[in-house]
């Protein structure tokens, strides 16, 4: 097993050596193989939590989520100097606002590209998405100076789909893996910046238990939300006698895209994005999402749903009352807590989570 996972800076250097243009990508959904086919490499920017956020706060209202404020701050402070372009998918109003602020007011040297995934999956939405991916491809070709041929497409699709399959396999093998939650999510999140082949190798290297996994009486939780930061959360959960047996994280399971059999690369990419697990930023019907969460709670052996949201995250907060009602009615506990996307966890938040775990024993 890889003991240390390369950092974002390390991955950036590797991609540069491979002659790829670096694109800083904001959350959440984008056609990754499109970037590879155009000789670009995405490094995703989720905050980062250690970023103070002061430079971003100059541009947004006080009720804007930490991801957008910190990401803007980070890009202004140092990110723009290290990348060839920035891609802002329209996941929510806050991200759309960020795209506008970056493009219109900050106006950095690297171009700011936007990408608008549709909120539904009707035939018209599908056709629109295919065109949107083509348009993004044209912008990427300007960034890298490369327009993909058939061989580029075949290589990019094979590599990225293998990495996506490795991510899906991690979730599939989860109960058998001999790693704690912290390690599991460190590896899952390495998909945000490693090259496809490095991620595939890393995921495959996680060891499995020799015998039957050790159930040890921990309280199983299904963790929902955008991003589980800081990673200390997992250590604290373990100390409380809990573990994450499944997730519904935007940085995790919600990006396990199913495979597609379509031959045209643009249609294939659109097909996979539209088949993503239910996600509010893709306009998934709340009812379907709640139903699937209940099914997954049952299947995973979780005793409760921990909704761990970034403060002021509108799409997530909007869903909480319905999720709470449906999941509670199915006999599972629900706790909703908000966090500021920082490097430490407030004592009060930990007490709530610990009390929740106690109620589930």
């Amino acid at each position, binding site marked *: 097993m890889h003991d240390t996972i390369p950092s974002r800076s390390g991955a950036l250097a590797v991609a540069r050596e491979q002659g790829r243009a670096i694109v800083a990508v904001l959350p959440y959904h984008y056609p990754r193989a499109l970037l590879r086919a155009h000789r670009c490499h995405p490094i995703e920017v989720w905050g980062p939590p250690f970023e103070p956020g002061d430079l971003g706060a100059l541009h947004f209202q006080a009720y804007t989520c930490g991801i957008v404020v910190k990401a803007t701050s980070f890009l202004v402070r140092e990110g723009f100097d290290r990348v060839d372009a920035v891609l802002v998918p329209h996941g929510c109003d806050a991200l759309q606002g960020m795209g506008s602020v970056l493009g219109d007011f900050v106006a950095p040297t690297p171009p700011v590209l936007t990408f608008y995934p549709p909120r539904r999956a009707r035939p018209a939405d599908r056709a629109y998405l295919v065109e949107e991916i083509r348009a993004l491809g044209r912008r990427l070709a300007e960034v890298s100076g490369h327009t993909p041929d058939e061989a580029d497409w075949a290589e990019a699709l094979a590599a990225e789909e293998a990495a996506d399959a490795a991510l899906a396999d991690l979730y599939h093998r989860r109960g058998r893996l001999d790693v704690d939650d912290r390690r599991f999510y460190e590896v899952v999140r390495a998909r945000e910046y490693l090259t496809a082949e490095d991620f595939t190798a890393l995921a495959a290297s996680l060891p499995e238990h020799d015998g039957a996994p050790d159930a040890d009486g921990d309280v199983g939780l299904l963790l929902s939300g955008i991003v589980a930061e800081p990673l200390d959360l997992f250590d604290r959960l373990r100390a409380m006698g809990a573990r994450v047996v499944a997730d519904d994280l935007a940085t995790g399971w919600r990006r396990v895209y199913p495979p597609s059999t379509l031959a045209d690369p643009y249609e294939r990419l659109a097909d996979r994005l539209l088949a993503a697990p239910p996600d509010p930023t893709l306009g998934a019907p709340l009812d379907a999402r709640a139903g699937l969460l209940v099914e997954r709670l049952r299947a995973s052996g979780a005793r409760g749903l921990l909704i761990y949201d970034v403060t002021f995250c509108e799409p997530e907060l909007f869903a909480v009352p319905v999720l709470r009602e449906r999941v509670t009615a199915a006999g599972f506990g629900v706790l909703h807590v908000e966090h500021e996307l920082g490097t430490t966890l407030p004592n009060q938040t930990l007490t709530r989570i*610990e*009390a929740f775990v*106690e*109620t589930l024993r």
Partner: protein
Amino acid sequence: MTVAALGIDAGSTTCKAVAVDADGHSVGWRLESALPRVEAQTDALLVALALELGAADGVPVVATGYGRKLVRAATRDVTEITCHARGVFADLGTGGTLVDIGGQDAKVIRIDERGRPVDFAMNDKCAAGTGRFLEYTADRLHVPLDDLGPRSLAAPRAEHISSTCTVFAESEIVSLIAQGADVDEILLGLHRSLVSRIVAMVRGVGLTPPLLLSGGVARNDAIRELLGRETGQPVRLPSAPQLMGAYGAALLALELTR
């Protein structure tokens, strides 16, 4: 009288310790204002209580409260949600919906028929809905804390205070004073404001009667009265509302011996 277990509640405003016998009856307690050094204070408090009651060494101790992880003598630590539920259930012999209003936080806990918390809400990020809100505004109006309840209940009508936020409420008070409003009527308005905040939490968790009240603020009659009026439910208090966390912790410590 033999001490079988000890519970300690290292709260943000006060530090409490309770001793129980093998039947789970409280046999002694101590309560002090909280000091900044939680480790030293809880050590001293437990030693003093154990000496006073002649407790043997090795008696199990469960710690709760915001400083629970810092109690060196603790055999185990458990959150205040579970401890309050357990303490109140044992004291009153019933589950229900418990409102606990402490110095710096307020909790609403739904307790099942076995004394276990099944759902809860906490207000711990700001002083709204906590004892600190009352303390702060009492200070602003130069009214002793113990007079708050009686004076509020004696007011013929309430001034309207729309904010549950301590800082905004203060500016409303300043305006009301400037307009010559009666202090007792302001006080009643403040109590109503606090209770409205608590009732919103109760509704969030769902009210399963009976309605129970604990924490230091339970000593304030106006809070109890207004909470009853707002919810339409009689409010029941345990015998020692401020000690329920420590008492529940002691009962959980007793379970460790079984």
